């Protein structure tokens, strides 16, 4: 573990100033991923700025029926169990509860969850020499290595890692908005623009500007949000990262799909929004044929590697299963 300095921020301005003052400094929220990576020698921040005392742990209704705001420090367990979330955004509650363990969810924060690093073996263990994300220019150990848990969509020759979050898959389908505070003031980032695909710079994972702090995540009051669900497919019944997951939300008009949102987890460098599938579904009568067509479109650009080609078929089946669930009469 690299030596580091610890300090505690009393308010958002102090936190932002602290982060801007020292290159490489990091915010400490729940620490469930960051501290682990520090022990592994993957993260070596010279300073940790503890933001746990900032008043950002709320889950509250936005005025004017505009939705719900999650504070950046709202704990995963608090969000998952909150009545507003359970009733209006079931996909988010289910995704959070499908992740990690109760102990980890009690610590993990909303902002921290957005910034989780990949579980790619070659990234997480610095004894592997090649990882462009950890050591730009060193190559990708996973390309010709053991790549069972890796990406099939949106990857590059530089990096085939996946984003590990379940929460983010739900937020993608819900078209959440990230609120940040930085040296230049406050701004909003649409969820789709928050995380990046790897391209040639897999080490840059988000579009956060230097010094920016995630203060909140807004959940808009979309008509599809309440009819939503999360399916996570993994190697054991609990406490495993997704091989494939699907967050789906559908607004129905009788038997007809008015509009749908579909996001995939475990398949890409970010939660993968399947917009082609959504377009196919819009305005169509619900049924297996159209679900299969949508699933096919979602995976049309997928490319598998030696150990993960199964994810393409698995993702299609999971999409069909999610849509069947959401559109069948209760």
């Amino acid at each position: 573990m690299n030596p580091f300095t610890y300090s505690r921020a009393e308010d958002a301005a102090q936190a932002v100033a602290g982060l801007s003052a020292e290159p490489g400094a990091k915010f400490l929220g729940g620490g469930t991923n960051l501290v682990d990576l520090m022990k592994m020698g993957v993260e070596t921040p010279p300073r940790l700025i503890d933001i746990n005392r900032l008043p950002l742990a709320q889950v509250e209704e936005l005025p004017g029926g505009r939705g719900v705001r999650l504070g950046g420090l709202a704990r995963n367990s608090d969000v998952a169990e909150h009545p507003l979330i359970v009733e209006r955004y079931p996909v988010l509650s289910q995704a959070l509860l499908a992740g990690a363990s109760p102990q980890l969810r009690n610590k993990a924060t909303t902002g921290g969850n957005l910034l989780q690093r990949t579980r790619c073996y070659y990234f997480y263990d610095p004894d592997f020499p090649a990882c462009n994300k950890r050591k730009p220019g060193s190559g990708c150990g996973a390309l010709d290595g053991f790549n069972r848990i890796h990406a099939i969509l949106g990857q590059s020759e530089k990096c085939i890692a996946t984003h590990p979050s379940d929460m983010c898959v739900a937020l993608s389908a819900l078209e959440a908005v990230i609120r940040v505070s930085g040296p230049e003031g406050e701004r909003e980032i649409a969820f789709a623009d928050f995380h990046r695909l790897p391209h040639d710079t897999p080490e840059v994972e988000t579009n956060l500007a230097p010094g920016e702090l995630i203060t909140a995540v807004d959940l808009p009051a979309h008509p599809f949000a309440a009819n939503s669900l999360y399916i996570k497919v993994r190697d054991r019944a609990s406490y495993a990262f997704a091989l494939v997951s699907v967050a789906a939300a559908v607004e129905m008009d009788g038997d007809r799909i008015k509009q749908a949102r579909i996001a995939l987890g475990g398949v890409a460098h970010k939660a993968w929004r399947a917009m082609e599938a959504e377009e196919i579904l819009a305005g169509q009568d619900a049924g297996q044929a159209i679900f299969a067509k949508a699933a096919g479109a979602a995976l049309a650009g997928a490319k598998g590697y030696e150990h993960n080609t199964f994810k393409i078929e698995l993702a299609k089946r999971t999409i069909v299963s999610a849509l069947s669930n959401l559109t069948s009469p209760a």
Partner: protein
Amino acid sequence: MSTATTEPRVLGKPVTRVDGRLKVMGAAKYAAEFNPQNVCHAFLLKSTISNGRIASLDISAAESAPGVRTVMTHENVPPADAPAAEHGSGGGIRNEERRPLSDDIIYYGGQYIAAIIAETPEQARHAASLIKVDYESKPPVLTHEQVPDKGNKPQENNGEPVQLNQGDIEAALDRPELTVVEHTYTTPTETHNPMEPSATVAEWLDDDHLTVHDSTQFVKGVQDLLRRAFDIPQENVRVISPFVGGAFGCKGALWPHVLLAAMAAKKVGAPVKLALTRQDMFSGTGHRTPTTQTITLAATADGKLQGIRHRVRTLTSPVGDYVETVGARSTGVMYASPSIAVEETVFPVNVGTPTFMRAPGECPGIYGLECAMDELAVELKMNPLDLRLANYADKHPISGKPWSTKHLKEAYQLGAEKFGWKDWKPEPRPRTRDGLLVGWGMATASYPGYKMMAEARIELRADGTARALCAAHDLGTGAYTVLGQISAEAIGLPMENVTFELGNSDLPFGPVAGGSNTTATVGSAIYDAAKNLHQNLAKLAAADSASPLHGIDPEKVTVTEVGMLASSEDSDKAEAFADIMQRAGKQTVVGTGGFKPGTSEPPVAFQSFGAQFCEVQIDPAMPRVQVTRFVSVMDCGRVINARTARSQILGGVIMGIGMALEEETVYDPATGLPTNRNLAEYHVPVNADIQEIEVHFVGEPDLAFNPMGARGMGEIGITGTAAAIANAVYHATGKRVRDLPITLDKLL
């Protein structure tokens, strides 16, 4: 005159764990929790290549990092090594036989190349990151296909045959009227992953007195190897291990970190604590070798086996010669067949040395054989249970000896009844439940009755309490409780009056806690010590004219009631222990004894058997296998404690579920390093994976085996589990997966 033989008073009772409260309160101290004054902390740097040599090693930055006391490498350490003892000698076990840090050659990924000792664990770990290593690297050899030569065919392993050739297998396989099935089954590398990673705290009291707190299955073995490594008298080495947080075999041999801790403590002149990381545990303390097994069965139309051929390939490392003995320990004991052939080849690869892992040999071997039996049943259109019964072995298939006791037929019968096997349907995909596929499978379980050697000491006090002592081990198995029960039974005292002490090399010799032998071996020694205790009491009584036992032959006493010594010829002649001791003015009377396996072959074969039945449920779209019901019926002789025995079988089944569905250590083809060396990516079953598991016992006390009549329980539970599950998966889906673990991608 009466000579009543009484039923056991304490044996068989479901006594709660005597150490349960300590563990729940966090008061049971494990090796890494011992903190001698001024203790330093070690961190080990591991090789990032698997084949080659260290070209250069720059430790200057590490040496000058804050808190660092020393950095040990192959360039600066004095030799400290001890070869493994001869098998059966009671000496220590080495699987990796290379002296740590002895040269610049890299034999496997994760090999320790430096030990950093600092004042805090964080300082040591940070300093390790400052060491610069350059390697000359060659591509690693990781699979048997990559090994250039033909491998090694050992004839013997630990005194047991590895290759078998009985009857004329070729002739049997050529008989045109027979049904022949032949398939290849593979099992992956599995890593033990006990909750408690290995840890050693080494402290030199002076130049030739060493105390070691170690997480080990064999305190006497560690003592033996350390005294030889440092050339000091045996009694100068103390190895202390009161609690072990799970082991499953990976703490049975002495691994390099134990030597390194003692070497480091000597070098820095202060106690050194070396707690392995989870990552270290994937290369530094062994694993279960992967196996490739081609099994050929030839049977008549009514299912009578005429030939079994079991060809096995396993792996070992360049720095050890571990052999798994897969075929002989499975096919060699299970079924009657006029011809049985086992051919086993071991290939050295650039991976750390394998070791014992819960039922080494039986576990992969029975998986292969029992899947093959299921495939034969399908081919013959037989009920798989009927096929097992048609080939029931009434005597040992190789030695021809009768079994000491065998109640496998009862196990099959009770298991079938509890499970509801009568409703089994032959065709695959027989039923669905809520849209999910449901399938049933079964398999036979087996594990031998092993005894090693042990000594025991009993100290009976005038107040009616006693302590019993042996350097045995409790790995979380319940040995404190079970050995306490045996002691209370053998001495003739209530359970609550007896304490059992173990886990310390100062105590009388205890064997490695392996081969499910602790209860049988240590229990035998306790009985012998109790007999000696009773004789010593009888001598006091015999010499005392006031005693009802005055003049008695000390050989002719027994205990018929709690705390009462009686004549074995006339139980009316009896006197309380306390009264004998009081009149003799004795505060303590001691009994000592031991057990050694005989030099002559026993006339019977000691082997436990069991029947395991399983139901799985599978979503056809997203086909992760769920084990919804599992029934095990075991014949292990007398069950000494129904509670801890059930727990052992449950644990075996759960570990078997992991083997069948989840566990696999995967090595990176380029570097040879284990890719998933953490508990997030190496999957073992979690609570949510475990549904209904039933455990039942049948049989009778195996009194030919030992005075308790008990055979071991630790390993048999896992042995049939993976096959039962794999067979149920076939039944549910119609798809035969012959490659463990059965992850959902293999069923898409």
